[in-house]
């Protein structure tokens, strides 16, 4: 199946992208938005989105099949990994869920259509309308394929024309999503542009930013700093920088039965998207004093990783990434040879998975691709003290704790500065309603118009 050249990213690789192409695309997007999108009702958009999501969930949907077929080459993920990612994502895109998102974010499902009031607003004699930016520009990170799709969905709901700039070689999924929109309603797809180039090309990015009303950037702190420098001052930048996540398992749940189950779920967290997202764990802190010791937990985790490798293999990775794993393994092997405080479990004849147990609780960032640390702590206080080096940079902490301790642990983590808490096993499956890095999703995109009576 070949796709028609509908978006810039559809052009053959030898085609040069020019500043004037970007400029023209932005003008067209804005014009099309005015014609086809600005006046649309929210409900009709949610229904369209639900319809598209439904298509993607069909196993024989041509674009889905194409995505899975090209996935290993274009995204680095196996068809099985991408398939479960697509299922988990698109099953959440329903009119009901999107309505709930609108109510959570904007207080009312029709907030984008007309002046409406919540009961509180009603009592104070006010109503309000929210409006999305005219042209919303997204600069997407290249590590995972799906977050960019969520950005597009949010932008569509707030009726923005959107230009998505992908990292080089990372446009496959956004492109296919845009084509699925085109199939269902070409006019909506006409408000969307997808392009890819290696970040930092000022001659392309300058015209793009000049047309933008709002810009979202996901990527390295360096990328964000550079874009911030280039952006005109009038533009609101929504930046999602580098984050790390980890797990915390209390001693109460380390019985032999539960520990094994938790190890299975933790292995799922590590394997999801090959650990490449910021919601993926670098490390698990294990409270000492349970029936199963932290070191034994590491061993259980290793067994689960080996099992998972059979069912959902990590697949090949670039030589530089494999080299990072090989170098770290060799280093920990030397350390383990001279001290019982370090232990290492790893896949044979491949870098598919690695567990490093270290008695030293100091937080350690992983080199990813299914490489994780397990460290013992006496309690949460010690874990947070040891994680001071990444404080303010933590996205998600996955917790396994008994009911009577859960609230206190959650509050401690919240005050310490964590943006999201979830059970072990759900790190890479945030709710559709989650607030990325602690910030409103739709709420951050819109501008409010208040009306007092």
């Amino acid at each position: 199946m070949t796709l028609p050249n509908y978006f810039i990213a559809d052009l053959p690789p030898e085609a040069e992208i020019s500043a004037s192409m970007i400029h023209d695309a932005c003008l067209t997007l804005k014009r099309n938005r005015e014609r086809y999108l600005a006046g649309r009702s929210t409900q009709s958009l949610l229904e369209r989105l639900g319809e598209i999501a439904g298509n993607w969930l069909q196993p024989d949907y041509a674009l889905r099949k194409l995505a899975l077929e090209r996935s290993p080459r274009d995204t680095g993920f196996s068809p099985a990994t991408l398939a479960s990612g697509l299922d988990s994502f698109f099953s959440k895109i329903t009119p009901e869920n999107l309505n709930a998102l609108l109510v959570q974010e904007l207080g009312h499902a029709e907030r984008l259509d007309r002046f409406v009031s919540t009961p509180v607003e009603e009592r104070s004699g006010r109503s309000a309308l929210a409006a999305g930016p005219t042209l919303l520009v997204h600069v997407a990170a290249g590590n995972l394929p799906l977050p960019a799709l969520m950005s597009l969905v949010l932008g569509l709901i707030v009726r923005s024309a959107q230009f998505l700039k992908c990292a080089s070689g990372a446009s496959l999924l956004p492109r296919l999503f845009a084509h699925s929109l085109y199939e269902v309603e070409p006019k909506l797809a006409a408000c969307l542009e997808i392009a890819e180039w290696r970040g930092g090309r000022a001659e392309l990015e300058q015209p793009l930013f000049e047309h933008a009303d709002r810009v979202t950037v996901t990527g390295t702190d360096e990328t964000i700093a550079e874009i911030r420098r280039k952006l005109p001052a009038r533009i609101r930048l929504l930046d999602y920088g580098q984050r790390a996540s980890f797990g915390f398992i209390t001693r109460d749940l380390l019985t032999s039965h539960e520990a094994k189950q938790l190890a299975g779920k933790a292995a799922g967290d590590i394997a999801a998207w090959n650990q490449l997202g910021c919601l993926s764990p670098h490390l698990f802190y294990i409270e000492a004093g349970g029936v199963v010791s932290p070191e034994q937990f590491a061993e259980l985790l290793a067994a689960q990783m080996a099992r998972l490798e059979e069912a959902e293999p990590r697949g090949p990775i670039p030589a530089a990434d494999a080299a990072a794993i090989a170098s770290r393994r060799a280093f920990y092997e030397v350390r383990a040879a001279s001290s019982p405080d370090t232990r290492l479990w790893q896949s044979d004849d491949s870098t598919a998975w690695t567990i490093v147990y270290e008695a030293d609780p100091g937080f350690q960032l992983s080199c990813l691709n299914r490489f994780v640390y397990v460290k013992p702590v006496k309690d949460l206080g010690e874990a947070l003290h040891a994680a001071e080096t990444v404080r303010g940079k933590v996205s998600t902490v996955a917790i396994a704790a008994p009911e009577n301790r859960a609230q206190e642990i959650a509050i401690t983590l919240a005050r310490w500065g964590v943006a999201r808490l979830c059970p072990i096993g759900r790190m890479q499956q945030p709710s559709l309603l989650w607030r990325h890095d602690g910030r409103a999703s739709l709420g951050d995109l819109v501008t409010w118009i208040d009306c007092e009576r």
Partner: protein
Amino acid sequence: MIRTFAEFTTRLDRFIRANMPLSGNEIRTPAQDHDFGELALSLFALQYGSVPAYRNFCDIRHVTPGSVADWKQIPPVPARAFKEFDLTSLSAAERTHAFHSSGTTGQKPGRQFHDAASLACYEQSLVPWFRAHLLPDEPPEIGLVVLTPSPADAPHSSLVHMAETIRRSFNWRFSEFVAGVDADNAWVLHSEVGVETLRGAQGSGLPVLILGTAFSFVHLLDHLAAGDRDVRLPDGSRVMETGGYKGRSRMMPKDELHELIARRLGVPPSHIVCEYGMSELSSQAYDRAAGHRAPRFNASTLQRPFRFPPWARARIVSPETGMLVGEGETGLIQVFDLANARSVMAIQTEDLAVLRADGFELMGRAQLAEPRGCSLMTAAPR
């Protein structure tokens, strides 16, 4: 059977003499594999017996001198382990000298210890291979300009020691170190002193040999560019450029750097030699002999393969499986360096290279992927 390090160094000395590269076009390699293997296995036995952290590492891999029949089975120790362990057979009292790896601030450097005998071994490895690549035409007189601090200012730098060894060995009339160190011991190129020194050479007609890291060349060239000045070094001048950037100057692709050296200093690319070395090794690899056409030049990667001397062997292994890669494939560089007598001979580097028929091409930064992603990353574990 070699029983002592003294015996080993005598044998190595003989091996180096027997395989001494000829100057000029012919650089003779490889040596008798049998002799290399025998020396490597003897050295492995000595090091296994006298470097405790290395022995532990071999034991965990179930490799002992008794179980190894081929030098290729000797376990290479990761270069990073030098940061954490004293990988040396020298007792604390015997360690008269230490080379430190350049690391990021706040990190413990890796240390390579020496005594007089092992330093002599290092120098014996260094000089002939350097001569074959930087002085193949055996110039009777050349001025040495080193873009590093002097040995007194940087006593733990293996690169500075290398330059100092060259200076002492050839005993030319003119030599100068043109950098210093700041309060944090970071190297600072005295650009104007460097320029003046090179201008002096230009005036006197004495060809020079400039040794420096890629980032020190960038600083020197930037300084010249800022004043829109050039130096035209006399014919026969040459450059040895080594090492990465480590954030100390703007990055510059190699061909661009060489072009600028040619333009601003008057040294043609045919006289610019790249060196690959590290403080954990006692032997170095070079990618060409100065002044010689480089038939090995690879136009598609703008690289020439590096080669170690006959007494050090590089193997390029798959990071995924640890197996040797095929020609044209990418892998991690392992070096088996007989001149690493008193530390560990077999070193696993973290550098990626492409295997070629006659050496290896280093993977430049530009050939690596675009940085991407939203997860925090770090280069080195603590």
